[in-house]
């Protein structure tokens, strides 16, 4: 019989995920790291707001939305750059990256305006 305690199962699950993830190409890992960074920043902003109250609400919103927006754009970039994705086979990754940069710049213009 196997040692089927829940912690052992969780550990096994974790290991398999980790090994699967290690196989992803480096540029995708960079994008994942960037997404994590954006989400963490958003979480910290929300915690701050929870502590001090939402007085300049527009500032809070613009901060959180900037993080969330850039995360979303990074996700789009990952989808487009991923070689295993058959839909975007013909799209050169540089083109996707250029779109990513442009959209980020527009997003940040709006964010800066809304920041107040």
């Amino acid at each position: 019989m196997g040692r089927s305690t829940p912690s052992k199962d969780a550990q096994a699950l974790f290991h398999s995920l980790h090994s699967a993830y290690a196989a992803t190409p480096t540029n995708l890992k960079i994008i994942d790291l960037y997404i994590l960074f954006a989400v963490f920043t958003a979480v910290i902003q929300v915690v701050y707001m929870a502590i001090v109250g939402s007085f300049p609400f527009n500032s809070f919103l613009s901060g959180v939305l900037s993080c969330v927006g850039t995360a979303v754009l990074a996700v789009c970039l990952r989808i487009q750059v991923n070689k295993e994705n058959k839909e975007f086979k013909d799209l050169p990754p540089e083109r996707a990256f250029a779109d990513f940069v442009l959209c980020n710049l527009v997003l940040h213009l709006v964010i800066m305006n809304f920041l107040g």
Partner: protein
Amino acid sequence: MLIKDQTSEVDVHLGDADRIFRSIKALSQSDGRWRYSSNNPESSTYAAGIALETVAGLISLASSEIDHSLVATIKNDIMKLFDGVERYDDGACYFDEKFVDAHGHQDPLSASSSVVRGITAFATATEESLNLPGDKIMGLAKFFLGVEIPGSAKDLYHQIDALACLGNSRVSVPLILSLPATVLSVSRKDQLKVRVNTVLGSSAPPLSVKLMQIFSSGSKDASVIDQELKFDPDHAVHVLETLPKNIDVGKYIFSFEISLQDPEHKKRYITGGRTKVPIYITGLIEVNNAEIAVLDSDIGSIEMQKKLDLSGENDVALLANHLQKLRLSFQLTTPSGKAFKPHQAFLKLRHESGVEHIFVVGDSGKKFEIILDFLGLVEKFFYLSGKYDIQLTVGDFVMENSFLRSLGHVELDLPDAPEKAARPPPQLVDSYSRYGPKAEIIHIFRSPEKRPPRELSLAFLGFVLLPFIGFFAGLLYLRVNLKNLPRSTVPATFAFLFHLGIASVLLLYALFWFKLDLFTTLKALGILGIFLMFVGHRTLSHLASVSAKLKSA
């Protein structure tokens, strides 16, 4: 029509005076009016006046050449003109235009004045006398005198010129009766004075004035007096020595008649029959037997009574409750001893809070009396107990000593107000305080939001920067290939410029937040964007070609 100058020194020979006369006459109408010219079919009274003046000028310049029968026809025209005169109710007469023409409608003042001028000139020019109806001349004089304030300088000219023509002309002169004062006081023993002059104020010939009738304002009948006024030559007035016996204070209409002493003057002057003048006789009214009392309601017995002297100030202090009544009575008599009914007799009760109540004092024939029953007035007084000031007002226009006196005060004890009673009306603000400075307005600003302490904010600033550092740490951990930057010069430049471009855009955003406005930012962004596009395109296409080569290779 030209009005020819009437200068007597210059000897003017009119070539064909007769023909001119006839041509003027041809323009006359059947009702006495004249037309302006043969082209214009409308006739005008003003034109009649001008025509008469012109004819008068003609006659005075060349009287020997004109046929006198034509002069008689002109006189007939004048008579016809007078038949068309219009009247007001008070006897003033005037000439008015029938047709209104487009340019310059002549109002009654200028039309009448022009006719008067024409008639006067005509009468002066011809040596014959015109038999004009006297009452119409008098009516014209009244019309011109009745123009109180002329509207323009032109109107003033018409008025004064016409009055001057009526004053000293060969037409009959109206005599005007005027009174320097129409309000006479019995107590001061004023005398009635009457002046008689011509229209512009010059003296009249010797005459006598009689007071014929006196109409009193209330009753229809009139007493016939027929008393002659004495003439005072120093002041040129006629004086009525004593007023008739049974004249009391009040409003009357006196009727006068002028009679000329010299019968010759009767032809030249117009007296105008009976003249009616309204006269006010005033006097001191005696107030006596004034008393104020507090009565018990049911029985009527007097609880407190005080006598008042209404010629001076009083200060009585009374006490009453809601079961009692307040009674005020007094008598008014005229100088000749009759009972007098004034126009106004009010009693005012004023509470210390400012609420006022006004009552009319009734007249019972013999005396004036008012009884205030507090039982019925409790609701009207809004159940306000306290000190009420009493004020009495008696007034009339023939009463020389009308008064408004404060009589004192009464302490009223009223029951308490029930739940549903009406509140007294809010008192008016004193007019001085209404325009005085108002209370200072203290602005209530919204209290600013509570901001977090500075240290907490700075701590969180550090926390926010943590993921950023974590990102770079992770990149290093992944051993990310940062060496993929192109080595050769041109692509390297572009790559460098690409990174520089992105950095500059981010810097622009930071500036935008700190200082700039949107429009400047957008302008700068446009420029940088174009640059960035160009550079980025070059870099990325270079990268793409490199990777494509790698793939194909």
